[in-house]
């Protein structure tokens, strides 16, 4: 018994040491110099942009009814329908100088803002959140009743579940229902009020800023004066800039860009330069 207990202790110690080492490694990695970011971006290109490109290549052409259309080879979806499959996750550069500090200003359509009157609901937000709170509370009570952490209770629950087999499973409330067909597409898909139209990417070129700051100090400026004159954000690029100007920022514009990035080396190189905030970073 003593031996077993000692062995157990050794195992626990080993596990602790490994856990500490892993935590240390992770902390180090999280705050360390950027590593493998180029490889990550290349994976994005190969696994995601390339897949998007393949998918839109198979899009049903506009004259799909014609004789040339090979129905077997082509998708049954048009380009617009394929775009509807996608939503866009925009990941922004940071202020922390992993690369150069950056900010993004988004521009959006407000043309019809004044003509649209808000649809006020009879139910207040107060009421809505109280109901939501109750739903979440009730769900939590269900968890307590399930006793999932107790193996015996878990066994019992499973046994009862098996008994009920054949009964329609409960609806999973964390899976949405399909969008009702009568609802029109939103501002991400068709130009309308609140559709994003353009963004401007701002960055602080730290090399230039620090250089200017220290030369101003040498020239006799006070640190505050030098900092005030040296520090500034400037436009790195805008979404409609070359070499891959985007007409707008609808999903279809991003889908087309992804396809272009998958196939055009020049655009991809510029995209990589911008991804690392013009620091010239490579792996």
């Amino acid at each position, binding site marked *: 018994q003593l031996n077993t207990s000692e062995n157990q202790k050794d195992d626990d110690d080993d596990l602790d040491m490994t856990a500490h080492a892993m935590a240390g490694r992770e902390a180090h990695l*999280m705050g360390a*110099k950027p590593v493998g970011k180029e490889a990550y971006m290349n994976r994005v290109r190969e696994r995601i942009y390339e897949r998007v490109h393949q998918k839109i290549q198979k899009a049903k052409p506009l004259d799909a009814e014609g004789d040339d259309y090979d129905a077997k080879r082509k998708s049954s979806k048009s380009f617009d329908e394929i775009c509807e499959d996608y939503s866009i996750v925009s990941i922004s550069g940071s202020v922390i100088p992993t690369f150069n500090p950056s900010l993004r200003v988004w521009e959006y*359509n407000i043309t019809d803002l004044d003509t649209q009157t808000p649809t*006020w609901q009879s139910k207040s937000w107060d009421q809505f959140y109280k109901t939501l709170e109750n739903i979440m509370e009730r769900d939590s009570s269900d968890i307590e009743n399930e006793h999932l952490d107790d193996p015996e209770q878990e066994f019992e629950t499973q046994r009862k579940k098996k008994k009920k087999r054949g009964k329609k499973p409960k609806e999973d409330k964390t899976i949405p229902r399909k969008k009702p067909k009568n609802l029109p597409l939103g501002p991400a898909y068709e130009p309308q*009020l609140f559709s994003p139209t353009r963004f401007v990417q701002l960055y602080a070129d730290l090399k230039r*800023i*620090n250089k200017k*700051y220290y030369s101003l100090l040498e020239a006799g400026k006070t640190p505050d004066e030098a900092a005030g004159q040296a*520090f500034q954000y400037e436009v790195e690029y805008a979404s409609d800039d070359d070499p891959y100007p985007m007409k707008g920022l609808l999903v279809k514009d991003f889908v087309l860009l992804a396809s272009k990035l998958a196939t055009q080396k020049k655009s991809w190189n510029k995209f990589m330069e911008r991804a690392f905030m013009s620091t010239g970073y490579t792996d």
Partner: protein
Amino acid sequence: DAITGLERKIYGRFLHITDMHPDAFYKEGSSIENVCHEGKPKNTKDRAPRFGYATGGCDSPPDLVNYTLEWITENLRDKIDFVIWTGDNVRHDNDRRIPRTEFQILDMNELISGKIQKLFSNPNSENPRDFDVSVVPSIGNNDVFPHNMFALGPTLQTREYHRIWNNLVPQEQQRTFDRSASFATEVIPGKLAVLSINTLYLFKANPLVDNCNSKKQPGYQILLWLGAVLEEFRQRGMKVWLSGHVPPIEKNFAEGCFDKYTLWTHEYRDIIIGGLYGHMNMDHFIPVDGEASWEAIKQSE
């Protein structure tokens, strides 16, 4: 303006700012190799400059954050409608000589939140909730202690963030915020809202998150919240931006969470404009395929 009832000029522009990571231990002139905390630089290239050094592995010097906010005050503040601010407002835990504490993390968040609120608040109003520019913050994986770990509320940490963002979280959402650390702000009342989603409940690296399938999982609860809120905005005829710290991509989200989250963004494409995230420090975008997620869900079932 929902608070004052006054009309506000809308510019058709907003700001996204993320991952400030200010480091109070940053020392100008120290060694970059020593994460800009101490030590004599080996050479001029190793010397930590006043405003920080790109790709060197150091966090932000406080001056970088302060001058960034000052630059925003002078150049953007009066030209934008709202701010989406996606977290990580403290230094990394990258120096074993000075490990981070929970107090340091919350204190720094309080400090930065105070600066941001001051920057965008209405200087002529005594009401602390009266902002010229609405600000929608979200929690980053470095804003919690231990690193990455964040339990479903109510916990001391969700209550702390409610206190720190007291003026930014709408009053009627106090209780749901205590539970989910997520909320929604009407940045143009009755028309446009921004959802602040606590993505740590879906994050693979959060040790308290396994999947999004069991009711006891934080991810299940946050998806319940998301679904209910999206449906309410649909009923009200409003459009929404999604925002959060960790981007919802396969690499980051726990089993099932990525597909379920993608389904919500897909099936509410009548109201969702897009999703803005931080965490990865690189400027790029990921198109996520809703139909592929339906396939994945069907297969897992």
